[in-house]
């Protein structure tokens, strides 16, 4: 495996594509199947798009983690944007598929195995999400 982690600064729509690409490549090298590769790319895409649309600027760090004999791909999305005031509402099952801060997050939860979010209004958001290689 070439890299153990990759870091993409997200500021423009092109960066979303770069983050997807780097996640997909890493997932492929790790041995994820095609369906999981596409799921991971979509999840990264949603996270990066949220940064781009609402925080304007942020970073996506994709890395390989090992834990209890398992190996997984870990996505960390961090920004110093406006933050989310009502986490409960944002994480509620998507009655919407597009539009609004955090609209894609329930989808990310469904695509990945774990999902953790910390957000403070005015101080930004950090999301960590893992997909385990079975």
């Amino acid at each position, binding site marked *: 495996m070439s890299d153990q982690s990759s870091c993409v600064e997200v500021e423009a729509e092109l960066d979303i594509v770069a983050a997807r690409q780097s996640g997909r490549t890493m997932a492929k090298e790790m041995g994820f199947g095609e369906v999981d590769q*596409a799921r991971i*790319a*979509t999840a990264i895409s949603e996270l990066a798009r949220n940064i781009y649309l609402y925080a304007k600027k942020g970073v996506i760090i994709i890395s390989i983690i090992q834990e209890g004999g398992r190996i997984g791909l870990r996505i960390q999305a961090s920004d110093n944007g406006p933050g989310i005031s009502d986490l409960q509402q944002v994480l509620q099952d998507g009655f919407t*598929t597009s539009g609004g801060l955090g609209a894609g997050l329930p989808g990310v939860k*469904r695509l990945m195995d774990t999902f953790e979010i910390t957000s403070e209004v005015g101080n930004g958001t950090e999301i960590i999400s893992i997909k385990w290689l079975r």
Partner: protein
Amino acid sequence: MDKQTKEKKVSDRYAQMLHQYIQHGSEDALYNAQQLSKSMIDKGVSPEEIVGFHIESIKKDFLNIQPEVLQSFDFLLEIMIGYGIQYREHVSLREKQIQLQSEIEIAAKMQQTLLPPIPSSIPSDLELGICSVAAKRMSGDYYHVFVDNSGYLCLAVADIIGKGIPAALCMSLIKYAIESLVDHPLDPHTLLSSINRVVEKNIDINMFVTMVYGTYCFSDHVFRYASAGHEPSLYYSAQDDQFYDLEAKGPVLGLTHEATYQEQSIEVQPNDIIILFTDGLTEIRVEEERFIERDEIKELFNEYKHLPAQEMADSIHKQLLKLSDFELQDDQTIVVIKRSA
């Protein structure tokens, strides 16, 4: 069997059946595909996984496939990921829905226990029949019947404007409001004024209740009634062989704090009938587009007036249910009082 092995098995089945179809191209392979589809849905396999199975199978079966065609599947797969999210949302929404429906089921049963039984102490020259059916699980219709200490049969029929869970909550208020008031029996118009205050105080401004309240005196056979914006009751005079509307002016409950209600009375003769009901009886669409008319309801009542009170109420309901293609648009309540010959 762990998840991975299970998935392998499903994908193998997919590959095998697809292979068969490609070899023979026959309809029965597609029939099998339909059965496979059902079983995969039962197993919670999501649509992007199906595309994944397809890609795997094609790769194995066609080693010389054009690389561009193979590549096109990645695009399809990408599109299908969004549908996969929707699919999994559906599975969890369905669970929530099942949970909510079981709650509604329990609540509907509780509602049934709120309805009083037909009182046993009615004199033999009087017959009472009641039929009350909800359009959905929860009803917004309510009736109350009881015999008070002074020998009056007291009857209330109410309709909550609004449906579902809020209407059910409101109905329980109406029940307890009536029960707490009828400890010391009141004139129909006074009772409606009191209930109006309770409703106005406790119920959301967007919710209204119509009610007809009447007392039937066992000794002089006078029926006194008042109405809070409720569908006019009907009175059948045997002597005239005709139905009359029992109109009484008064605003719906909950509109204003102080409301006064007109009180009317009639002397009920042998073979006469009084029918109290809710507007669910007129909320019937007939001949595709048109609502049923009050005159048609009267005709219907006329048709069944020879039956015992309970059978009359039930038959009217059944006939209306049939007319509305077995799909009630509104709750239906019918209370029939018959004075025998």
